[in-house]
Structures are given as structure tokens and as C-alpha cells.
């Protein structure tokens, strides 16, 4: 009894000691999520409000991170920007993982020509450099946040399809799946109840890396004008707007860039930590 009570605390301590960076990543994302949720409470000013008399003010007690070329408060814009970045991560990864998982399950479980065709389709998507295809898609659909998210999801799903298919192929032959089948479970039931839950761990690792990747790609698309459109407070847009002031008023671009860097690094740290936890052989090698 004593042991069972002590175990969680011990393992928590062990996780902290073994991978403090993963915990730091989790803490950063928790702070970011809280910031995004309580943006209206936290932001000292309206992120869109222009005060032309205080244009390009350097960081001060009044404007902690300074103001931009239209006198908007940078801290407030960054706080609101966190909402868009997290939204992009969640929507893109959610879409890509759902489509990819479905395709991977179908390909792996049915096999045969359908498997072959679906896998060749993933080959085709892998052949495009991601940002260039995303740019072509959002260019064709018209520049907007929604279209940028669709574009990034379109280039991101194949990796999930491959991952899930590989898992299904190895799980399909395992005893517990055979047992379920011999007990009369239908193909659909075997896939959803027995195979899918066992593919979730590697999916989670991929998803946490992709959250960062999606945020980076979306910011890149916004920067070149294919994602979120000004005046929306989004980190990529903010960097782009500060572009002409980089040598003289660097804070316009500096802080939103740091925010992207920290957020993506946090997701990467979580991904590393999850991967190490799931495959102890890799511990400390990444």
C-alpha cells in the first residue's frame, strides 16, 4: 500500500530529474495556453488601437515591449498573437493527424492495392518541399488564416498516414488482435478498439513536434503575405511589419520572433521528452 502511494510522487520526481527540459517545455506551453485563454484580462491595451502620438516608442514602464509604427502596444499584440499561434497548432495538427490516421488505418488494415495506392499518394506529397506547396495552395485558395491552416494540414498529413500504417502492420499480427478477431470482433471493431489505441503513443510524439512545425510554417506564410492578414495581431505579421525598422527599432520584430522561438522550442522539448519516455533506448541521445 505504502509503495503504491509513494510510486507516483517518486516517478514524478524522476521525470523532473531526468528531463528537466521536458518539464520546462510543458511549463512554457501551460503559460502560453493560460495567456491565450485570458488575453483580454492580461493585455494592457487594445491590440488594434493606434496611438499615432506614441509611434515607435522603445520599451518603457508604460509599454513594456514598446510600440510599433502605428503606436500599437506590442505586448498586447503579442498576448493576442498567442491565441492565433496555439489555434494554428491545434487545428493543423488535429486536421493532419485525423486525416493521416484514417488513411494509415485503412491502408495498413486492408492492405493490397488500396494500401499501395494510398502509400504512393503519400510519396507524392513527400516530394514537395512543404512551404512551397503550402504557398501554392494558400495562393490558389486566397491568402487568409483559414486557408493557410488548410494548406499546412494538406502538406502535413502524410507523415501520420505512414506512421499509423507501420504501426498497424506490426499490430495486425499481434496475439491480442488475433484473439479479438477469433472472438468474433468485426474488422471495424478491431481497428477502432484494439489497433487505434495502440498507435496513439508515437502519434503523440509526432504531433508535439508538428505543433511547433505548424506554428513556424504559418508564421512564415504570414510573413510573406499568405497567412493571417494585417492588422490582425499575429506573430508572423508582426515580424513582417517590423521588417523595415530592424536596424533602428529592433523591438518591433525582436519580441514576436522570440515568442515563436520559445513556443516552438517548448513543443520540440515535449516531443523529445515523450519520445525518450516511449523508447528508453533513445534516452539522452537526441
Amino acid at each position: 500500500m505504502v509503495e503504491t502511494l509513494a510510486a507516483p510522487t517518486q516517478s514524478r520526481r524522476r521525470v523532473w530529474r531526468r528531463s528537466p527540459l521536458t518539464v520546462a517545455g510543458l511549463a512554457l506551453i501551460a503559460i502560453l495556453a493560460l495567456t491565450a485563454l485570458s488575453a483580454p484580462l492580461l493585455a494592457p491595451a487594445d491590440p488594434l488601437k493606434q496611438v499615432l502620438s506614441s509611434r515607435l516608442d522603445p520599451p518603457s514602464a508604460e509599454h513594456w515591449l514598446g510600440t510599433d509604427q502605428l503606436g500599437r502596444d506590442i505586448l498586447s499584440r503579442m498576448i493576442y498573437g498567442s491565441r492565433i499561434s496555439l489555434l494554428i497548432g491545434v487545428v493543423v495538427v488535429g486536421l493532419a493527424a485525423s486525416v493521416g490516421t484514417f488513411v494509415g488505418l485503412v491502408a495498413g488494415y486492408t492492405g493490397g492495392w488500396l494500401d499501395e495506392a494510398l502509400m504512393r499518394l503519400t510519396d507524392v506529397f513527400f516530394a514537395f518541399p512543404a512551404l512551397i506547396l503550402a504557398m501554392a495552395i494558400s495562393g490558389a485558395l486566397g491568402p487568409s488564416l483559414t486557408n493557410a491552416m488548410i494548406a499546412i494540414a494538406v502538406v502535413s498529413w502524410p507523415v501520420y498516414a505512414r506512421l499509423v500504417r507501420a504501426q498497424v502492420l506490426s499490430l495486425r499480427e499481434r496475439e491480442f488482435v488475433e484473439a479479438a478477431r477469433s472472438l468474433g470482433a468485426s474488422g471495424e471493431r478491431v481497428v477502432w478498439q484494439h489497433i487505434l489505441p495502440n498507435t496513439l503513443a508515437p502519434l503523440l510524439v509526432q504531433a508535439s513536434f508538428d505543433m511547433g512545425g505548424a506554428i513556424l510554417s504559418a508564421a512564415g506564410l504570414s510573413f510573406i503575405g499568405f497567412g493571417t492578414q494585417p492588422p490582425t495581431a499575429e506573430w508572423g505579421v508582426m515580424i513582417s511589419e517590423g521588417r523595415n525598422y530592424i536596424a533602428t527599432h529592433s523591438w518591433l520584430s525582436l519580441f514576436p520572433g522570440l515568442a515563436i522561438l520559445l513556443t516552438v522550442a517548448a513543443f520540440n522539448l515535449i516531443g523529445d521528452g515523450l519520445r525518450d519516455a516511449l523508447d528508453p533506448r533513445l534516452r539522452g541521445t537526441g
Partner: protein
Amino acid sequence: MTLLSYLFRRLVGFLAVMIGISIITFGLSHLVPADPAVVAMGDHASNEQIEAFREKYGLNKPVPEQYWIYVTNLLQGDLGISLRTRRPVAEDLRNFFPATFELSLTALILSILIGIPAGVISATARNRLPDHIVRIASLIGGSVPIFWLGLILIGFFYGRLGWLPGGARIDSFIPPPPEVTGLFTVDSLLAGDYKALWSSLHHLFLPALALGYFSTAIIARMMRSSMLEVLNNQYVLAARAKGLNQRTVVWRHAARNALIPTVTTIGVTFGSLLSGAVLTETIFSWPGLGRYATYSATSLDFPAVMGVTLLAALVYTLTNLVVDLGYQWLDPRIRHG
């Protein structure tokens, strides 16, 4: 499986992928809500001119037939006319490709030259200061927005210090070297024009650094983890037991074998270099394919965007094919199934 049948299989796969790519770019150019003939010919075109354009590109025919015309044109090197530059897209691609190739290649060379030693040093000094530095630098490299890094580099090295140029391929007062390869560094070497060589190297440095940081980070991480695995192998122990010094053991025995998985990573990062080139070229006013694609996409110049997309996919697929063959050459034990 013999090398020949492997090659054959890969080539068939390559063709299948290229067909898939052409279907996707064809489909994308049909997603555009505007009538491509009207967009291509401009507002002042007469109905006859628009009709003639439709006829030429088969836009009044059923979709499968349109695709067939599209592919036939592609195979003849006809990628359409750029709506912005009014030149054939194929000609534009030929003109802009060398700049992107020179930038991506320099970035790749920089990332190999920095990433591999960094990975080796990090692995041999595991959990000590050099390891921590390399790991943090790699984490930043894998997370930093490339366009932001480029801006910061410009702001600091060009804006503040004035040490390096902030854009373009060569100083405006230096005539570019006579074109042989289209790569300014190579062409100025061939012409013996060291002023042009120095200027183009000067201009290459910052954009290549910004573009190459991501791949440097990936290569360093991969090299570190494969070195850690290799260092535990029996033959490394045997080499140490023979009394070989640390340098020989690490570089001659371990690093050579740890390179094998890293080579695949290098191939994969090439795709990220092409993607990154879009952003880097935009920031550094680098007259390459990436900037061409961005400008074309903003002015809804779809033949040009699709041209770049196709070329990028072709280059990326070919690179991966070459890397896979290189992999086989590096490690003859690998038999492709």
C-alpha cells in the same frame, strides 16, 4: 536484389511520383477561382484573344483532355507564360535557378562543415559543457523562424556594424562575372576576377548562415545520436584496446560509421533548404526562385508558381534518389528490400 533491379524500381517509383506531382499542380491551378484565360490575357484583351488562349491551352476541353495537354506541354518544356514577367516560365526558372542553387548549396556545405564536427564533439563530451552548448544551439536551430533570424542578422551585421551586406548577390558597383554556370562564386573564379569572388562570398555569407542553421541543427543532432550508438560498439572498444589515440578512434573509426545515417538526414534537409530559400531570399533580396515564387504568388501568377513548385519537387525527389544510392554505396551491407 541487385543494384540494377533496385535502380529500375526506384526509377519507376520516381516516374509515378512525377505523374502524381503533375496531377496535384494541375489540380491546384484549377482551384484558382478566376478564369485563367482572362487573368492571363489581362483586362484589355479582346474576346478573340481570350478564345485563342483557351484553344492553345485546351481550357475549353474536358478536364482529362486538359490534363493531357498540360502534361504534353510540360514534357516539351512549356510551362506557360509568366503573367508578371511576360516571359516563358521555363526561361525564368533557368534564369533564377542558379542563384537559389548557389545559396542552398553554400548553406548545405556550411551546415555539413559545422554540423558534423559539432555532433562528434557533443557525443564525445557527453553531458559536459561542449555537449550542452551544441544541444542548446541545435534546439534553437530547430525552433527559430528562419525569416526572423535573417532579419536579426541583417539588423546586426549590416544595420549596426556595417560589416556585411544586407542583400543582393554582388555589390552594385562590381560587374557580375561572365556567365558560365550562373553561380557567381564559380564564374568569378573561372574568370579570375577575385574582386567579384570576394564580393559574392561576402553577399552569400549571411543568407547562407540563416538558411543553413536549421539543417546544421538537424545534422548535429543526428550525428550526435549516431555517434553515441557507434561509440559503444565492439570495434571501437577494440580500437581503443589496441592503444590507438582518442583522435584516431573518434574520427577514423567511429565518425566514419556514424556518418551513414547522417547522410540520409542531409538528403532530407535539402527539402527544408528549398522551402527555407523562399523566406531567406525574400528577406535578403536574393534574386532566386524563392523570391520569384513569392512575387509570382502575390500577383496571382499561377503558371510561375506551379513552375517553381514542379521544379522544387523534381529537385527534391532527385536529391533523395541520389542520397539513397549514396547510402547503398557508403554501406554495402544495406540491401534494399
